[in-house]
């Protein structure tokens, strides 16, 4: 594992060696994500959590204008998230996220390294799978999506009550899987920040450089 030159020099600087041991890690948090990546991360994070909550709430509502309204908003938001996730993936391909700091990586047992990579890959897979399954479910149920009530989007599948019955639990299960992964993601971030104090979280926060 190569340690970036920048990190090596910082680790050897007097300012670093003189600070309390517990803060050395945070001072080592060097390379941040790009501002665009941060913006997309927090925006989509908030949007996904909100939309998950709305989805849970609306699914149990009785047939009413309120229910239809929420369903439409949920669909528009879902399509927006899908588009932003695509933008996010394209951005990520063009601007590779910073590597895990070497000493953070060395401190992680093998299973955590695997979990770290696995969780992120799975999250990205679900960023696409969950909205696409929702879109397909809407098409199958015979409700085409008209984005913001103005732009009709193509149906992903033909209307079919049987297919709708299959897709509905898939949309739900994939959303729950994403929610579980988000919880793990948040728990891991907080553990790194407050227990390991390795400054990993700072890579996703703007400001102090």
């Amino acid at each position, binding site marked *: 594992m190569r340690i970036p030159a920048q990190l090596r020099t910082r680790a050897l600087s007097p300012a670093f060696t003189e600070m309390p041991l517990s803060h050395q890690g945070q001072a080592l948090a060097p390379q941040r994500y790009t501002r665009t990546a941060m913006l997309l991360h927090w925006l989509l994070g908030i949007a996904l959590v909100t939309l998950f909550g709305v989805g849970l709430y609306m699914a149990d509502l009785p*047939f009413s204008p309120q229910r*239809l309204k929420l369903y439409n908003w949920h669909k528009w938001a879902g399509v927006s998230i899908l588009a932003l996730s695509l933008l996010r993936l394209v951005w990520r391909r063009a601007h590779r996220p910073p590597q895990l700091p070497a000493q953070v990586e060395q401190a992680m047992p093998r299973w955590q390294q695997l979990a770290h990579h696995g969780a992120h890959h799975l999250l990205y897979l679900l960023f696409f799978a969950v909205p696409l399954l929702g879109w397909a479910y809407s098409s199958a*149920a*015979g*409700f085409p999506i008209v984005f913001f*009530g103005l732009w009709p989007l193509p149906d992903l599948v033909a*209307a079919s*009550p049987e297919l709708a019955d299959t897709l509905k639990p898939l949309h739900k299960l994939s959303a729950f899987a994403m929610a579980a992964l988000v919880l793990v993601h948040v728990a891991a971030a907080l553990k790194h920040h407050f227990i390991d104090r390795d400054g990993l979280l700072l890579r996703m926060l703007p400001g102090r450089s």
Partner: protein
Amino acid sequence: MQIASVLSALALGSAALLAAQPALAQQKLVPAQSEVQFTARQMGVPLEGHFKKFDAQVHFDPAKLATSKIALTVDTGSATMGSRETDAELPKSTWFNVPQFPQATFQSSTIKTLGAGKFDVAGKLSIKGVARDVVVPVTLVQNGATTTATGVLPLKRLAFKIGENEWADTSMVADDVQVKFKLALTGVGKL
């Protein structure tokens, strides 16, 4: 003597029946080739539905429009929009109120020809206890023994109280509903 008169009465009766039969069987709807559809709009989303059960009573003579009559009866309880959720709602009192108004009807009053197989059929449309005068544009196309009548009738759903109370909000469900029909008829004379 008595037997003879009974027989002759029977003969007369069956002759009358035979004579009446062609007239009855003359103009009939072919349900398998007919459709009555509707399109509603919910927050900009077009939703298609159709009625599975309807019938038409047609006495149409292109040469005698003044005495021609067309009547259409639609079973409101046979409406479907293809999803279980909406189909469970349609028969309720806020929508079609099927228990109280099981049928929607159209009864023609005057038929006007516009030429080239096009007609304006004026008449009374009754849905959910509300009767309104409408003019239905109808196009007739003949193919062999079958005459197909097609047309589109734009309606305002609120005029017929379809979608009451909370559902009267037209920003939610638009007032405009398109009714599209295709009625295949047998026994209509040459246009």
